[in-house]
């Protein structure tokens, strides 16, 4: 009597693993050679695995639902001695297969981590984690063409190949990446130059920006919005508002309101990258960027979707005031799920924001500019504004972002003194 193993067979070319859907035998069953013992599902075929021996099933190692690599152990069979001759012939052919496999250059991985200069350069330029790239070269070497294929796939948007499994070690990578940069700055200041030590808020900004830009694969999108009606509305009410409420009704409040409303309809943009999963946030807390001298704060308007335009204007006013007087609390800064950045206040008409880590996107509201626009084949003077979205391409694709921006545009263009209430 001898104990033999039955392993997951190769069910078709290029099939590397199979999932056991059903065992057709149980422990103690007598099987003949070539009897089916289990049904296996692969990404190509569903097939029955035949027994390699005649004998009695002794132990079932792999359970139903388990996914096994080709060659992995499925079960043990006790084989009677009388069949040994058959077995030996079989096992010798098995051996031939094995040795063949070990010689097969496609299986060998000794060159997997030998990177050529071209491969290293491309992977760094395109932020590709080579651990995840299949090598088609000798000994499993990743060739320049392999990397170029990954880049091409990434550009088509099918494959967010960026460092998905690196997320858990984000802090480490960020630290690693900032450190050499600091070391590299070995430049001497000349007489008359001013040296500003990097610390505190500046240091935090620097670290956050490096983390955002190195970890998040940014993509960008801009839409143009006609806010002529909105401008009329605001101009009509702003003086009374200031008098009654004691603070200004800015355009920015309208934009924040529109974004909060659109986010409710497109929760994908209100999410966070968490390495192996994406978390869509229920609450809509909008971060807004507030600059003070050489410092940048990103306080949060909590539950922006539940606020009126007046409520938002008030929050903006309060947060900005706190920021300028240095009274922002940690609580004021926490929990943002999406950022709206008022770059228009500097006169900018186009910019590409850096995403506020770990959020999924940031929207830049640019300057409102009066421009000639063609409406019904006639020139008209309209108040136009660009909205520029930066998106984390791991989480978001162009389609959903395009729809989101279209919705924001629709909301803003629909704002006029008949439809929109400030209170």
């Amino acid at each position, binding site marked *: 009597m001898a104990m033999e193993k039955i392993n997951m067979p190769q069910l078709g070319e290029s099939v590397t693993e199979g999932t056991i859907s059903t065992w057709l035998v149980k422990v103690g069953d007598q099987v003949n050679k070539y009897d089916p013992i289990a049904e296996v599902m692969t990404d190509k075929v569903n097939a029955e695995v035949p027994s390699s021996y005649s004998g009695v099933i002794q132990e079932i190692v792999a359970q139903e639902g388990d996914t096994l690599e080709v060659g992995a152990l499925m079960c043990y069979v006790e084989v009677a001695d009388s069949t040994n001759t058959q077995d030996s012939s079989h096992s010798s052919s098995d051996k031939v297969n094995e040795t063949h496999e070990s010689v097969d250059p496609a299986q060998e991985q000794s060159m997997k981590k030998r990177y050529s*200069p*071209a491969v290293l*350069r491309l992977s760094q330029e395109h932020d590709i984690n080579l651990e995840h790239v299949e090598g088609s*070269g*000798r000994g499993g070497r990743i060739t320049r*063409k392999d990397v170029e294929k990954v880049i091409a796939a990434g550009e088509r948007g099918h494959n967010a190949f960026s460092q998905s499994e690196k997320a858990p070690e984000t802090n480490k990578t960020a630290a690693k990446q900032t450190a050499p940069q600091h070391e590299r700055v070995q430049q001497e200041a000349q007489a008359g130059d001013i040296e500003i030590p990097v610390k505190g808020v500046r240091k935090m900004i620097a670290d956050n920006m490096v983390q955002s830009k190195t970890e998040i694969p940014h993509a960008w999108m801009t839409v143009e919005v006609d806010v002529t009606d909105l401008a009329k509305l605001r101009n009509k009410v702003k003086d009374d508002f200031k008098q009654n409420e004691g603070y200004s009704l800015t355009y920015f409040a309208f934009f924040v309101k529109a974004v909060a409303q659109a986010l409710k309809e497109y929760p994908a943009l209100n999410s966070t990258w968490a390495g192996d999963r994406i978390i869509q946030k229920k609450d809509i807390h909008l971060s807004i960027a507030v600059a003070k001298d050489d410092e940048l704060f990103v306080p949060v308007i909590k539950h922006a979707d539940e606020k009126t335009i007046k409520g938002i204007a008030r929050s903006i006013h309060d947060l900005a005031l706190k920021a300028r007087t240095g009274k922002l609390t940690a609580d004021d800064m926490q929990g943002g799920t999406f950022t709206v950045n008022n770059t228009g206040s500097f006169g900018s008409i186009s910019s590409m924001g850096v995403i506020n880590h770990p959020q999924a996107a940031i929207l830049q509201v640019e300057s409102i500019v009066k421009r000639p626009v063609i409406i019904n084949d006639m020139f008209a003077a309209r108040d136009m504004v660009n909205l520029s979205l930066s998106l984390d391409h791991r989480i978001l694709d162009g389609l959903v972002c395009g729809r989101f921006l279209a919705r924001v545009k629709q909301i803003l263009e629909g704002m006029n003194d008949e439809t929109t209430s400030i209170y």
Partner: protein
Amino acid sequence: MPVMSYIQAVTTALKEEMQRDENVFILGEDVGKKGGVFRATDGLYDEFGDARVLDTPLAESAIAGVGIGAAMYGKRPVAEMQFADFIMPAVNQIISEAARIRYRSNNDWTCPITIRAPYGGGVHGALYHSQSVEAVFANQPGLKIVMPSTPYDVKGLLKAAIRDNDPVLFFEHKRAYRLLKGDVPEEDYVLPIGKADVKREGTDITVITYGLCVNFALQAAEKLAEEGIDAHILDLRTIYPLDQEAIIEAAKKTGKVLLVTEDNKEGSIIGEVAAIISEHCLFDLDAPIQRLAGPDIPAMPYAPTMEKFFMINPDKVEKAMRDLAEF
């Protein structure tokens, strides 16, 4: 368009240039009445007479020296070395005089001579009728060295060499003479000296070579294409000075470069090509630069088996190309 052999293209270019410019004349051993040992000057003696197609004594130094003097005096001589192997007695004339005169005379004198010489093996010529000698001349500023690979290139480049105002060495592969045939336009055309030529576009590996080996590489590429290996082939055409831009571009295209020459490996032209690539293309390289060349032994054995061992052939090129593609 007429189909011509490589040597017919040589004859045609000579004939047309002699018709075009009466300063063009030919001198060499047996080039007159006999029409050359390879028949490269066949019919020219009859057409242009003994004043323009000169049979010389067996003295290569004199052939080169007379040619250089005539060139400096305003003629356009085309001197023939019967075999490139025989050029050695003329090396002093070529390097010390022809290559230097423009520089030495501060541009007062020029030397528009063309020196033709059949080189290369594979014709059972043994040692003194088979060698590749281009590397001897390939670090002499003032000289240009042209080594064409097709009948079309022969005609265009030989005309360019004759019209060039500086000395040009024009090496013709003697095995290619009757082996290679191709379309050659009847009209007058010249191809630029100093420019390499892409003979085949591809994306997997780059082969850079010149002369007869271009044909071998093209044959191998066709076979490999059936296996899905797509080779890019650059023909240097002029091997001194080298077309750096084209070399860099071709190397960057695939990052896997195979250099082929029939010459002995160490110190050959392709070593310089490899240096250019390593200077300019490090971050585009996906494999070590590979060289396929003759062994470092005095060329070329007479025994057919040994000649085969020495010579580059399509099978050897194919093997080296596949090896590089699989890397």
